């Protein structure tokens, strides 16, 4: 079963936030010291508030809040990107070629006030 529901059309629901950066963070093989400094959080960012009637807190797109983080101030980039990808079945080496459609990619970098009420620097990727 499939859906072509664009991600940017999903609404939001603030369903609680317990994001520990050390558990969810991307790897940075080039700068582990920086990663350690950035990601050992004891607080959590606050998700943006859901749009009325929606259960997921994902706005996005022209004229909409592209930040998934509330109490945020900073720079943002957002995009829906199309292209093609080669998929390889690792056990057999079989390769297939597929489109990827409306890959919703965003960054948020700046300051935010976490669940601890304090202001913190942060850089985030929406994937």
């Amino acid at each position, binding site marked *: 079963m499939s859906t072509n529901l664009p*991600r940017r059309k999903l609404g939001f629901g603030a369903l609680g936030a317990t994001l520990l950066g050390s558990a969810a963070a991307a790897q940075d093989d080039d700068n582990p010291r920086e990663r350690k400094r950035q990601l050992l959080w004891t607080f959590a960012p606050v998700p943006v*508030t859901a749009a009325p009637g929606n259960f997921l807190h994902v706005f996005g797109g022209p004229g909409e*809040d592209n930040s998934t983080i509330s109490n945020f101030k900073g720079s943002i980039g957002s995009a829906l*990107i199309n292209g093609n990808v080669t998929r390889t079945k690792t056990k057999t080496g079989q390769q297939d070629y*597929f489109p990827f459609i409306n890959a919703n*990619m965003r960054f*948020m970098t700046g300051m935010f006030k976490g669940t601890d009420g304090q202001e913190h620097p942060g*850089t985030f*990727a*929406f994937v």
Partner: protein
Amino acid sequence: MDVYLPGTGGAQIHDLNPTQFPPVGLFWTVPIPVGGVQVDLDNGKASMQASKVPIFDYGTLQNATSIGSSPPPTPGWVSFKVIWQGGTASMPVNSTDPTKGIFSGTFASCMAQIEWQAQAGDFSFESDPLETSSSTFAEIGQEMNGSYLTV
């Protein structure tokens, strides 16, 4: 990353995102090292890259958001590089509409491209080079929301 079967109306076959089911907290959002994002708003460009971000392959968006176990999500990782460029005319945006989010900022429309690699379960993925991709929507800018709007 949303991967589909070829052709118009092709079914979605992979939905790679970093959120566990049920989706709570920061949705599809993960911290990355600060050096992974470069922003040059004066010249209308930015970039984001990250390596081996933990993700799950839910197969479809519906499974990722409302079912969660059909099929069971497969853990994996994704690496990506995204560029934004050509954003030259920043426009103010002040939204008080809760259906769009309450925020204030300035944004410039632009174009974006991506290249990415991933692995999940029995599959690895390698996108075509960055320059072969194209965006249907892209913007960069600055904004504030939440408590920053009342300060």
